[in-house]
Structures are given as structure tokens and as C-alpha cells.
């Protein structure tokens, strides 16, 4: 019997989908059987971030409506052993899946998979409620900006009110230069404001956009700051005690670019 973890944030654009893709891939790379559920019906994106968009035949709505069997809708990631995707429907809206259908679906997935990661849509409406209804744990993603932190607080409150008692935070897109200059909320500030446990931090990294361009999560190579960060978070999910990574300044300037150029294949 596996566990269902919802990745949520309230605010859009803070990195829920990227986080889901990387944590799921990372868990599968560590030998676990993982399914990613894209609950963002109507605005599906997890498929492109993970590079499986061309292989979709059926989606989550087809499954709950009985148009196909669950196993027929699951897409196996050929790059990463043990990783599967249940895509969202693109032509429907959030109301296409009810709370009861979602609960039943997640229960079924938990029988076959060790980890069921649910990529929650932005907002606090039906799509959110649907994503958290069957979750055993929640990972809240935020970025160090007032709007995202405020929304994260609201989400944490709603999770606790809905009896999701395991709630942990990922602070995404931290920039050492801005923190040092006193122009970005640091880790302690954010934790103090939200009074929640930290699961991990992810530094701002241009590799994230490069990786979504090609549909390959950064955690696969794991040689960039964000890739290392996601590997650390995966280890913590697996119960390992990994110290927080040290934030480093993104190398800038001519020589840094040359060095970066040659370090790539």
C-alpha cells in the first residue's frame, strides 16, 4: 500500500509541476514505483514538463468515466524505470472529476504504486479540494515573494482544516545574491512567517527552463544546483537525514559562461 502526496501552492507559477516531475522522477530513480497524477484538468502541463506529451491516448477523465481501464491510461516513462504518468484531460474542466471519483482512483493507484504524487492546480476551488481529498501528505511549494507566501499560508490552513496533518514546505527559486543584499525573504524568515516544517530548498537555476524545453527533469542528471536540490528532497522523503544545501551565487560574466559552455556536452 503506497502513499499519496499532493504538491500544492495556492498561487500559480511557483513550480508545482516542475517539483512534481522532479520528485517523482527522483523517487523512481531511487528504485520506487511512482505514478504522477496531473490533477490540473483543462490546463495539463505535467506531460510536457516530463516529455511524455506525444504518448497520451487516454486521460484521467476517461478513467473515471469508464471509457478506458486505469492501466491503459497510464504512460510508462521509458527513461526512468518505475515512473508512470496519469495525464489530465485537456478539453474538459475541473468538475469532470468528482471528489468521490478522485478518492476511489487514488485508492486504486496506491495498491499498485509506492508513491502517488498529485500535481494540484492553482487556486483553492474544486480542483484543489479534489487534489487533497485523497492525499496522505502534502508538500507546499512557495517562492520567497509576499504573494506566494501569503497564498501558501492560506493553503496550509486549508490543508490542516481538511485533516491533512503532514504538511511540509519547499522554498523554490531562492537567490543567494538577493538574500545577501537583504532583498529576498530568507529561509528562516519564510519558516517563521508560515510556522511549518521545511522539506527543502531549491535555488533559482536557469537549468530549469532548459530542462522543461527538452522535457527532461533536472534531477535526472543531477549535476546542477536545482538537480542536487531535488535529489536531496527525494532523499528526505525517503527518510534520510540530508543537510540543507548551501546556496551559491549563480556564476556570471564572460569566463563563467565559457566555463559553463565547455562543461556541457
Amino acid at each position: 500500500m503506497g502513499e499519496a502526496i499532493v504538491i500544492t501552492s495556492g498561487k500559480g507559477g511557483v513550480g508545482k509541476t516542475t517539483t512534481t516531475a522532479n520528485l517523482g522522477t527522483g523517487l523512481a530513480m531511487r528504485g520506487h514505483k511512482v505514478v504522477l497524477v496531473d490533477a490540473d484538468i483543462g490546463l495539463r502541463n505535467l506531460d510536457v514538463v516530463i516529455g511524455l506529451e506525444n504518448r497520451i491516448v487516454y486521460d484521467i477523465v476517461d478513467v473515471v468515466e469508464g471509457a478506458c481501464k486505469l492501466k491503459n491510461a497510464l504512460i510508462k516513462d521509458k527513461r526512468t524505470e518505475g515512473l508512470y504518468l496519469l495525464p489530465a484531460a485537456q478539453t474538459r474542466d475541473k468538475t469532470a472529476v468528482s471528489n468521490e471519483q478522485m478518492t476511489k482512483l487514488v485508492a486504486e493507484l496506491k495498491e499498485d504504486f509506492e508513491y502517488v504524487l498529485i500535481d494540484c492546480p492553482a487556486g483553492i476551488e474544486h480542483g484543489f479540494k479534489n487534489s487533497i481529498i485523497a492525499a496522505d501528505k502534502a508538500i507546499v511549494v512557495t517562492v520567497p515573494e509576499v504573494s506566494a507566501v501569503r497564498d501558501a499560508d492560506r493553503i496550509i490552513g486549508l490543508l490542516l482544516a481538511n485533516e491533512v496533518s503532514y504538511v511540509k514546505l519547499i522554498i523554490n527559486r531562492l537567490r543567494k545574491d538577493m538574500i545577501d543584499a537583504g532583498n529576498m525573504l530568507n529561509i528562516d524568515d519564510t519558516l517563521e512567517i508560515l510556522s511549518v516544517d521545511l522539506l527543502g530548498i531549491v535555488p533559482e537555476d536557469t537549468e530549469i527552463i532548459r530542462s522543461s524545453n527538452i522535457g527532461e527533469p533536472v534531477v535526472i542528471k543531477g549535476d546542477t544546483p536545482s538537480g542536487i536540490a531535488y535529489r536531496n528532497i527525494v532523499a528526505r522523503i525517503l527518510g534520510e537525514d540530508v543537510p540543507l544545501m548551501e546556496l551559491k551565487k549563480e556564476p556570471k560574466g564572460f569566463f563563467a559562461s565559457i566555463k559553463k559552455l565547455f562543461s556541457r556536452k
Partner: protein
Amino acid sequence: MGTWASFIQKLMGKNQTKDVAKERLKLVLFHDRTEIPPALVDVIKDEIIAVLDKYLDIDKEKMDVELTKLGEESRSSTSALVANIPVRGVKSTKKIQ
């Protein structure tokens, strides 16, 4: 905090903005969590003053009325209205009787 970066910023006369962000967030989240809008607190404050003012000579300059969380647990839903109002004396005892 990086001393060099903050030192250079001070030299350039630029203010650090994260402390402002932190204070603003703390206040806005307090109101979000308690679901008591800031405007309501102001109304309550004015009415308390009006009542006290009827009977007592209070120092409005030095008074301090605010709604804060109760206890250390910032997610606790109980809040406390803390009022610190210096009283100079009694205005009139005519109204009692």
C-alpha cells in the same frame, strides 16, 4: 546576511526590502488567519475610545490598542485584544447615580 553586499547597498543608499516584506506579511497573515479585517479593528478601537472618553480623561496620544495572537503558536485561532490606555483621571461622576 552578507555583510559586503549589504554594506555596498548602504553605500549606494538603497534600502533593504525583505524586512518590510516580512512585517507586511506578518500583519496581513494575522488578519487572514483570524478573518478579522483591519478596518474592523479600527472601528472597535474607535468605539472603545468613545466609551472610555465619556467617563475618563484618557491620553489618546500614548494609548495603544491592537489585536494580537494569543500564545506562541502562530496558527492558533485565538487572538487577544490588547489595550494599553493611560488614564489621567476621572472626567465626571455625574453620569453615574
